């Protein structure tokens, strides 16, 4: 035996190798070869570098970030100190980005699901993914004569300007169906568009100059934490802070006066205040005469239809309080109103915003430092949109894109015909979690031939997709970001290599274009190659350069830059309305079916069957369905709850922490009660969020009821998220 070993020692090892190698696997110790590892070839320079990044989330703050990268690994993120808005700090969500990038749960590879919703996934190569997608696109185009059966649903998961290349990719294959509009703020945008000509606010850093500040239906302590510095600073300088909200929020807890209003009656309060201001001649007649259209008609409406007593009954706010804040607001200059997005998520939301705008106008608080009717700004968004503006291929069929309402997505997909919708491309969105009428949205997904979703994490939408494509985080790809609130412009540098096989959405578009053209020459116009940083450069134009005082976009590599002009909205008095004036009377509003004046539209009322209004406000540790799935956030709070006033709890025999079923005619959720006096007795509150691994989604109960406005500026009306009427009972 010994002899055998001596003779065959090496030869047998090789023989084994030869035998097994013939069927594809050697396993011989003398045949080692490197595959994932490689010999070190160059001396390593273990350097630490700083990169500039920008938070691309759908958030007021759009923080300028400084990232520290050591040996190619993202080590730390912190707020930029150059930006006087970010001021060197991030919110809890921002600080979790290292968690987000290096979570083992990231989607790492393109994958294909055997049966939609089965959870049976196979890993596929990018080429296989592109081939399957491109083949389906071409097959649809051949069968239907156009690409209209292909529907894009993309919105705010990543607001980097280059991410509009996703829309560009769809344009580059032909006319397609587009989910149009926004779930967030459209009624308010329309309201401001009717009043001012567009939505445009003062630089939020200017809040420090306010002497009187009403935060009306916003909760910056949770949703715009950097703005709170300016609010606090204003208070230090003597500004009185009033917070109006149905919920005693963390922001409200820091106010001088908190006013708990009945939901959806904000317009009644504003009009009641306006009536008081009119009766007591506290309005700014000079400003109105010079800058407005329709003041007489508005005052006439107030005199005929509005009383402070009526406003008190409507809103639940004592008359004396209304009179007091009306007097203070009208006589303390400058006075600023921050109009939140919550109040416009009602069937009368747009009119409510118009009524509040009117308060700012009649008191002459428009166009002034420290003043304003602050809703949002789109002034710094005038990019070239190079990635988005793609030509459609010749003879691609269909006359134009088909627009469907993003806020009634499920039903509109199912109802689309001639041609029907057969394929969805989902990017920067999680419609199954975020859209109303979840069951209908699910049915729409079920009806598809192919659903492709590009995302970073598994979520309910990915679960209902056929192919998922892994996308990069903001740190793994270049981009450029601005805010819809502040006036800073931030370059987003690629700080680290993409993890695993993740790709930027524009890279995906380029590679899909290459595959489409390989299969059918001329079928896609999207460029098939290009350096992503060069793509970023192409997003800039002369207008942006002028606004930010730049010669070249690379100047942003030194740090974020603030706009040089336009920081006080409407300071020049040149409104963008048809009349060029602030329009209390808006013929444009009339064209869109609204009363031309800011009038009160009756709020929806609960009924006997569903007696409570459920408000699904934003949660502090997440933005829509982002962030809360991260373990860091889950570690702080991983349990949704139903907040209710003790009066409501007593009425329904519910105690704190009881499991409660909240339901209406379309769905239900079961969750523990949190009995608290911070919510008004007219409502229950469930914070909208997606908790990983939990069968919780408040939108099971939310109907696709449109808000009154939104069509003009965003293409579709808003969604009355907060007109959700429900019943509750203790769960068995």
């Amino acid at each position, binding site marked *: 035996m*010994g002899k055998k070993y*001596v003779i065959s*020692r090496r030869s047998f090892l090789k*023989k*084994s190798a030869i035998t097994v190698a013939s069927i594809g696997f050697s396993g011989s110790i*003398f045949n080692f070869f*490197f595959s994932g590892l490689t010999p070190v070839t160059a001396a390593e320079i273990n350097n630490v570098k700083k990169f500039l990044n920008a938070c691309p989330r759908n958030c007021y703050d759009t923080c300028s970030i400084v990232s520290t990268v050591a040996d190619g690994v993202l080590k730390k993120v912190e707020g930029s100190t150059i930006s006087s808005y970010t001021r060197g700090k991030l919110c809890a969500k921002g600080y979790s980005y290292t968690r987000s990038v290096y979570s083992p749960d990231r989607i790492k590879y393109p994958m294909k699901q055997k049966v939609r919703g089965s959870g049976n*996934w196979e890993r596929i190569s990018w080429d296989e993914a592109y081939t399957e997608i491109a083949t389906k696109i071409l097959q649809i185009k051949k069968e239907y004569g156009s690409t209209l059966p292909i529907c894009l649903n993309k919105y705010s998961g990543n607001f980097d300007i280059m991410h509009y290349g996703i829309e560009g990719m769809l344009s580059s294959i032909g006319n397609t169906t587009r989910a149009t509009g926004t779930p967030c703020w459209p009624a308010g945008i329309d309201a401001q568009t009717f009043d001012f000509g567009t939505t445009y606010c003062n630089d939020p850093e200017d809040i420090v100059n306010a002497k009187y500040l009403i935060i009306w239906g916003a909760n910056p302590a949770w949703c715009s934490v950097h703005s709170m510095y300016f609010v606090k600073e204003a208070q230090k300088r003597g500004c009185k802070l009033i917070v109006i909200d149905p919920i005693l929020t963390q922001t409200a807890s820091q106010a001088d006066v908190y006013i708990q209003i009945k939901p959806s009656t904000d317009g009644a309060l504003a009009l009641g205040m306006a009536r008081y201001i009119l009766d007591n001649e506290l309005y700014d007649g000079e400003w109105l005469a010079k800058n407005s259209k329709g003041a007489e008609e508005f005052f006439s409406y107030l005199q005929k239809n509005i009383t402070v007593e009526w406003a008190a009954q409507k809103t639940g706010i004592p008359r004396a309080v209304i009179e007091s804040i009306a007097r203070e607001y009208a006589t303390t200059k400058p006075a600023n109103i921050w109009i939140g997005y919550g109040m416009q998520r009602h069937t009368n939301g747009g009119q409510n915003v118009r009524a509040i705008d009117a308060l700012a106008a009649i008191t002459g608080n428009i166009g002034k430092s420290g003043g304003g009717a602050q809703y949002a700004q789109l002034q710094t968004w005038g990019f070239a949109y190079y990635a988005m503006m793609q030509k459609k291929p010749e003879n691609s069929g269909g006359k134009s894109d088909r627009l469907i309402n993003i806020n009634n997505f499920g039903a509109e997909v199912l109802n689309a015909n001639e041609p029907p919708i057969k394929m969805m491309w989902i990017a920067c969105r999680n419609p199954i979690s975020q859209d109303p009428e979840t069951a209908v949205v699910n049915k729409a997904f079920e009806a598809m031939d192919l659903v492709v979703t590009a995302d970073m994490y598994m979520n309910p939408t990915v679960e209902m997709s056929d192919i998922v494509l892994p996308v990069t985080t903001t740190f793994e790809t270049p981009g450029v970001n601005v805010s819809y609130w502040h006036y800073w412009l931030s370059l987003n540098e690629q700080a680290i290599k993409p993890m695993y096989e993740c790709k930027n959405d524009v890279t995906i578009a380029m590679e899909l274009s290459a595959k489409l053209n390989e299969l059918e020459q001329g079928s896609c116009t999207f460029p098939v190659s290009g350096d992503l940083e060069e793509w970023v450069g192409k997003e800039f134009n002369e207008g942006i350069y002028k606004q930010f005082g730049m010669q070249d976009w690379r100047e942003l590599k030194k740090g974020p830059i603030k706009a040089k002009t336009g920081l006080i909205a409407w300071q020049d008095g040149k409104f963008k309305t048809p009349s060029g004036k602030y329009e209390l009377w808006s013929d444009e509003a009339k064209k869109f079916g609204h009363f031309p004046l800011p009038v009160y539209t009756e709020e929806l009322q609960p009924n006997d069957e569903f007696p409570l209004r459920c408000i699904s406000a934003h949660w502090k540790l997440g933005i829509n369905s982002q962030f809360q799935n991260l373990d860091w956030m889950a570690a702080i709070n991983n349990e949704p709850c139903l907040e209710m006033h003790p009066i409501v709890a007593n009425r329904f025999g519910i105690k704190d922490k009881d499991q409660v079923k909240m339901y209406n005619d379309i769905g239900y959720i079961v969750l523990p009660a949190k009995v608290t006096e911070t919510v008004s007795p007219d409502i229950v509150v469930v914070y909208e969020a997606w908790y990983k691994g939990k069968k919780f989604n408040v939108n099971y109960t939310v109907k696709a009821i449109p808000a009154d406005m939104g069509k003009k500026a965003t293409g579709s009306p808003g969604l009355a998220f907060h007109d959700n009427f429900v019943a509750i009972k203790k769960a068995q």
Partner: protein
Amino acid sequence: MRIMPQNHKSNMLKDMQGRYYIYSLFKIYYQGDWEEIRKALQAVEYYQDDNSQSPEPSINSLLKRLSDLNSVMDENSIYEYNKLFVGPGKLLAPPFESSYRNKLGLVMQEETMAVRNFYKEIGVEVKEKNSIPDDHLVLELECICYLLAQAAEQLEKGLIASPNEYLVLYKMFFAQHIKPWLYEHCNDILHHGVNPFCRGMAEIFKQFLQGEERQNEK
């Protein structure tokens, strides 16, 4: 230079070969190319024929079980494998050392860097550095294969001191980067897994690691 007795040397080589073989198999398994996995498991049978007199009976027994697993591999094995190790959902048994050892469960943290530093010490690095965590099990298994191959190469050349150096490095790597998490990883597979193939692989891997641990501690 002292020449080793041939029988002892041969047995050592055969022993190393067996261990290398199993590590290689699991490396292929964790790479996730199912055609390669199938081929590798088919090859076990041939390997066994040629190595029926391996000095390590436990290796032979494990190889027999690996060979038998070929027959239970099916489509569901792939789906479960992906749920355990690949995604797109939350991984039920992440193939990353740091997922088990980092207090926040993150990859690319100090635990991953410790593996990177070990690689650096032995003159290797990850080809897709900073895209694939250095502590992905595939890379750790490749590192072990490299060390065992180096040890065998030195042994084959008849150098007494050199092979020990690589075997010492292997034992160090096993103690520092395999033992602290891989049992838990296998237990996660056995806890979450229902597919006989995936469970069988985990059971065999765990048993093999226990044998390695015992041998390393001798």
